[in-house]
């Protein structure tokens, strides 16, 4: 698994370093432009943009990875990595999908889920680490329970405040960190 992790990290880092977000969008945009000419009308483009993407909407801004292999808005509960989460999404609190907000501390002890990535069809082991010691105020609550089990099997339970080994056990939000992909079947 460690080798696979390193390989995955190397591939993704290589992809990220060679490929800017804009270039990904430009390639995707070119494909979309080629595929359909009707939506190029200004009205159609305006309608096609979600309210949240409109900078004047006052709504939460969507956050995308920019990597087509990691699709979805990371501030929304239906993002694929959040399949076993129960809590607030750190991407809405100044953190990101896998980093805690400033002023908090990430608990090294966590619970584990297995989520299917719709882009590459692989199952990934995801650790849900709580960020602790900051303010919780109810933004981006998300409750999904695939693989969640009662507190009796603690490592698969998402109701526990997983703030252990940190200065404060007061819960703020939860990140979703990819630990690795399920080994390929031979």
């Amino acid at each position, binding site marked *: 698994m460690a080798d696979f992790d390193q390989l995955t990290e190397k591939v993704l880092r290589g992809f990220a370093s060679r490929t800017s977000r804009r270039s990904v969008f430009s390639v995707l945009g070119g494909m979309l432009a080629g595929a359909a000419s009707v939506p190029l009308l200004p009205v159609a483009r305006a309608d096609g943009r979600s309210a949240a993407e409109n900078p004047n909407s006052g709504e939460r801004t969507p956050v995308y990875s920019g990597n087509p292999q990691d699709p979805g808005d990371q501030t929304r509960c239906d993002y694929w990595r959040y399949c*076993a989460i129960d809590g607030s999404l750190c991407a809405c609190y100044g953190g990101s999908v896998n980093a805690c907000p400033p002023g908090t501390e990430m608990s090294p002890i966590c619970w584990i889920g297995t989520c299917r990535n719709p882009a590459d069809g692989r199952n990934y082991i995801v650790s849900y680490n709580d960020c602790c010691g900051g303010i919780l105020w109810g933004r981006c609550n998300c409750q999904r*329970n695939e693989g969640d089990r*009662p*507190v*009796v*099997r*603690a490592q698969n339970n998402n*109701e*526990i405040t997983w703030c252990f080994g940190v200065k404060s*056990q007061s819960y703020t939000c939860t990140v979703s960190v990819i630990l690795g992909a399920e080994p390929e079947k031979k």
Partner: protein
Amino acid sequence: MSVKGIRTALPVILGVLAAAPSFASQRFAHPLPRDKTGVVLTLPAKYPTNWAFLDYASERIEIRDVGDDSRRVIGEVQARDSTTMLIPKDRPEFYTADTVWSRYTRGTRTDYITVYDKRTLDPIGEIVLPGRKRALITAQQGMFEFTDHERLGLVFNFTPAASVTVVDLVHRKVLGDVDIPGCALIFPSGRIGFSTLCASGTVFSVKLDAAGHVVSHSESKPFNHLGHNPLFTASTMIDGVRYFVTMKGDVQPIDMRHAAAKVLPSWPLVTPAERAAHWRPSGWQLVSSDAQGELYVLMQAHAHEGTQKDAADEVWVYDVATKQRLRRLRLVRPGSSIALTHGAKPTLLVQADRRLDVYDPETGALIRSLGLPGLDTRLSIEPVR
């Protein structure tokens, strides 16, 4: 109208306005009496059974009148993190177990039990819990329980090492700790003691003496299939037997009348056809019971992995003696937590998102609906006994 006209009319308008109070005072001959200041309401020593405690996990605990169309809030006490409560039947006080930090989200952590006067809701006592280890889990059954006829309180700890702190609630002092490695939550068993569910699939029972020391312990054979069909940890007691339900739709009774919990034969909630249609229990506080021994379970159709804590569409009612389903109640809104009130004519309380719906448990008719403003997470319901 010219400026001159306005000047002429102005005194008339002002005169009419000045006369208006006199018309009103003719209608109401006397002014309102002066109010007393400094009045604070109190509650009866014995609460009526149409009241219920509502635990908004980590926000507040509210006492509501669920038996009257006034739907009024009776009173509230504070809750900070994973707050749980114990309401004695006859003692003039009740207890909450809570955790705070000296600087709101940081600073020194204190775990403590507050003793509230039932009549005034004043905090009249406090028991500080040692070790800063009280379990911080969404408030649920099994985190804070009575034993020894409500004299002792048991607090579940998780660091993630699991243990139970034994507290003398009458003398307001901590008696000691019992380690329960690999196990979780507290289910009172025997005269003084408790049982707990373990990761090995067993139930582990501990018998205590009056001083809170362990006298003996025992462990069942594995019966809880934690991977594919685990027991929900919400449960309800009927005649000394605790009824759990499993994720895939079975009932698991455990006899708690003696020091060693005895696992009784399980039985299905669903027919083979209903099992094939994926009717399963789902929700949060998803089971309840009444004085007649009827078991109420929140049920959901088309259930699958990941929906086990979703709100459910129906409540199914069983006679636990005959193991037969008596009726199905279809909810007007999907419900997550249920409880039956304890009066002469019980009602079924169903938390459905930010509402508490009150049903007739016989007919399934909706009687009234209460708003639950500010509810963002799970709700635990404890009707007054």
